[in-house]
C-alpha cells in the first residue's frame, strides 16, 4: 500500500489584468472572456483568501450580485452553483453565463455598482510543497489531520477534486485501497457538506468525522 504524502499549499492573489466590471453586462462579458484561472479563483479559491467577511454565498460573483448590485435573485441563482459538481471549468462558465443572460432578459435596466464597489477580476498563484510527512496506515490519518495547516486541508480535500480521480478528495481516494473496513469513512467523506465551511471549520469537520466511533 502506498504511503500518503502530506502536501501543503499557499496562495497569493493578483490582478488578472482585466478591467473591473461596473454593471451586470460588463460582468457577463468579462466572465465570457476571462481565463479559466480567473473563473477557478472566484469559485474555488475564495476559502484561501484572507477576509473579514463570512458571506452568505461561497463564490465571489454571487456575493457581488448580492452586496454591490443589490440583486438578490441573481445572487441566489449564482450562489447555489457547486463548482465541484461540474465536469469542467468550461461547463461551469456556460452555466454562469446562462444564469446571467436569463437575469439580463428579465430586467428592464442593467444593474450597476457604486464607484469603488466594482468587481475586480483576480487570479492566484498557488505554491505547492511537500511537508516531508508520510503516513502509511489509515489510523495515522486523524493525528495527521490535526497537525495539518489550512493549506494542507485545502490541497487534499478541495483542490484534490480537480485531479484524477476527478471529484474525489485525497483522503477518500487513499482510504479506498484499505478495504471494506474503511468504506464507511470513504462514504462519510464523500457526503461531507463543506460548502459553507471556512478551512478551519472544514478541518474541525474532518476531525469530528474520524473521531466518530460509529463509523468504525
Amino acid at each position: 500500500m502506498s504511503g500518503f504524502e502530506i502536501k501543503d499549499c499557499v496562495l497569493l492573489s493578483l490582478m488578472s489584468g482585466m478591467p473591473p466590471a461596473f454593471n451586470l453586462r460588463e460582468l457577463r462579458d468579462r466572465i465570457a472572456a476571462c481565463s479559466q484561472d480567473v473563473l477557478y479563483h472566484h469559485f474555488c479559491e475564495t476559502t484561501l483568501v484572507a477576509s473579514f467577511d463570512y458571506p452568505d454565498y461561497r463564490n465571489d460573483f454571487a456575493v457581488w450580485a448580492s452586496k454591490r448590485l443589490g440583486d438578490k435573485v441573481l445572487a441566489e441563482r449564482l450562489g447555489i452553483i457547486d463548482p465541484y459538481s461540474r465536469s469542467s471549468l468550461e461547463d461551469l462558465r456556460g452555466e454562469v453565463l446562462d444564469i446571467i443572460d436569463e437575469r439580463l432578459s428579465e430586467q428592464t435596466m442593467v444593474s450597476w455598482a457604486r464607484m469603488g464597489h466594482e468587481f475586480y477580476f483576480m487570479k492566484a498563484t498557488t505554491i505547492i510543497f511537500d511537508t516531508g510527512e508520510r503516513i502509511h496506515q489509515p489510523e495515522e490519518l486523524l493525528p495527521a489531520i490535526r497537525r495539518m495547516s489550512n493549506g494542507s486541508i485545502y490541497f487534499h480535500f478541495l483542490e484534490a477534486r480537480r485531479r484524477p480521480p476527478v471529484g474525489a478528495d485525497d483522503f477518500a481516494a487513499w482510504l479506498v485501497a484499505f478495504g471494506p473496513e474503511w468504506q464507511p469513512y470513504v462514504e462519510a467523506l464523500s457526503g461531507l457538506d463543506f460548502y459553507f465551511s471556512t478551512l478551519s471549520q472544514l478541518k474541525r469537520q474532518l476531525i469530528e468525522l474520524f473521531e466518530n466511533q460509529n463509523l468504525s
Partner: protein
Amino acid sequence: MHQALDEYEKISGTPVIEQLRRLGDRLKGRKILHVNSTAEGGGVAEILSWMTPLMQDLGIDANWMVIEGSKEFFNMTKSIHNGLQGYPVVMHKRDWETYIDVNRHNAEKLRPLLQESDFVVIHDPQPAALLQWFPKRRGKWIWRAHIDVSHPFRPVWKSLRSFVQAYDASIFSMAQFAQLLPHPQYIIAPSIDPLSEKNIDLDVSELEEIRHRFGLDPAVPTLVQISRFDRFKDPVGVIKAYRLVARVKPIQLVLAGGGASDDPEGSEVLKEVMEEAEKDPNIHVHLLPADAHRTVNALQRLADIIIQKSTREGFGLTVTEGLWKGKPVIGGDAGGIRLQVIDHYTGFLVNTPEGAAHRIRFLLHHRERRMQMSRTAKEFVRENFLLTRHLREYLTLILTLLSGEWKPTVVV
C-alpha cells in the same frame, strides 16, 4: 523588541508556524532588503520592525534600510502621498528634482546592499525612484504601495508611474488600489503583531493607570480614535459626531496619535483639532510620542467603541488593532476599512459625522450586539490578519518570482 517566530505558536497555532518554517527553508540564505522612509511612526515602520527579524528567524538574510531626506523632500513626498490619495496638489518641476536628487543620494549610499540583494522591496512613493540607478541589478525589485491609490490625482500618479513601471512586480493592499502597470500586481493586506507593545494583553492595573493619567471617567462610555493628525483621518468629523451624541448621552472622546517623521502636516492639523475641541473637558486630544505603543494599546482597550472615520485610508491598521482587542469599530467607508468593517458584524461603515453619531448611539444602546461583534471580530483577525499570514504571503510572492513567468500552480 521583536519576538521569535515560535512565540506566535500559542496564538496562531502550530500548523501555521510549521508552514512558515517550511516555506522559509526554501528561501534560506536569500538576501531580501526592505527600504522605506521612516524608522518609526506609521504602519509601514511597524510592519518592517517585525517582518525583518522574523524573516531572519527563518534563515533569510533580511535587512531594512531607511532613506535620508531633507525637509523639502518630505514636504514634497507628503504632497505625493496626498495626491495619490486623490487630493489635488500643485507640484512643480523643482519638487520632482528634489525627489530625484534625494533618491540619487540614497541610491549611492545604499548601493552595495541594493545591488547585491536577491529581492528589494521598496515601500511607498518616497524611495520609488531608487530603481533607476540600478540598470544592471541582479535581484527582483518590488514596489509596495501601502496607501489608498484607488482614485489618485492623475498628474501625480502619472509622474510617479514613470518611476514605478520598471519594477518586476508591485503589491497593493486591496484590488481597488491596483493601477494599470506593465508588471504583475499582487494583493497583500497588511496585518498586526499580536505580541507587540501595541497589541499585547495588559494588566487591569496598567489600564487603570492610563485611565487616571488621561483623566477618563470610568462611568462614562469612551469613544477612541487613534491616528496621526491627518486631514484624511477626519478628526474634526469625529468631534462633530461626538457632539451629536453628547447632546443626548454622556460620552467622552479620545483623539490620540503620534506624528511620523515623514509627515510635516501633523502639527497644523493638530492645531485645527484643538480649536474644534474648544476646551471641552470630555474631549481628550493627545499628541503621543512615536514609541507610546503601550499607551495606544491601553486607550484602545479602555474604549467602548473604536472609531476610525477616515475619508481615505490605506488599510487602517488601527481598525485591525481595535478588532483584535474585541471592540466594534465605526469606520469611514474608505479603503481597507471597507474590508474589515462589515455592517452588523464587526462594526459599521459610515460616511458622515451624522452617520457615525447614529451608529455610536446604536452600539451604546445594544450592549449584547456589541459583545457579539467583539467575539466575531477577534476570530477574524486571528485567522486572517495577524502577521503570520502577512509573512506567509511575502514568502509566497518571493517563491513565485523565483519560479519565473506567472503560472497558476508552482511546485517547490
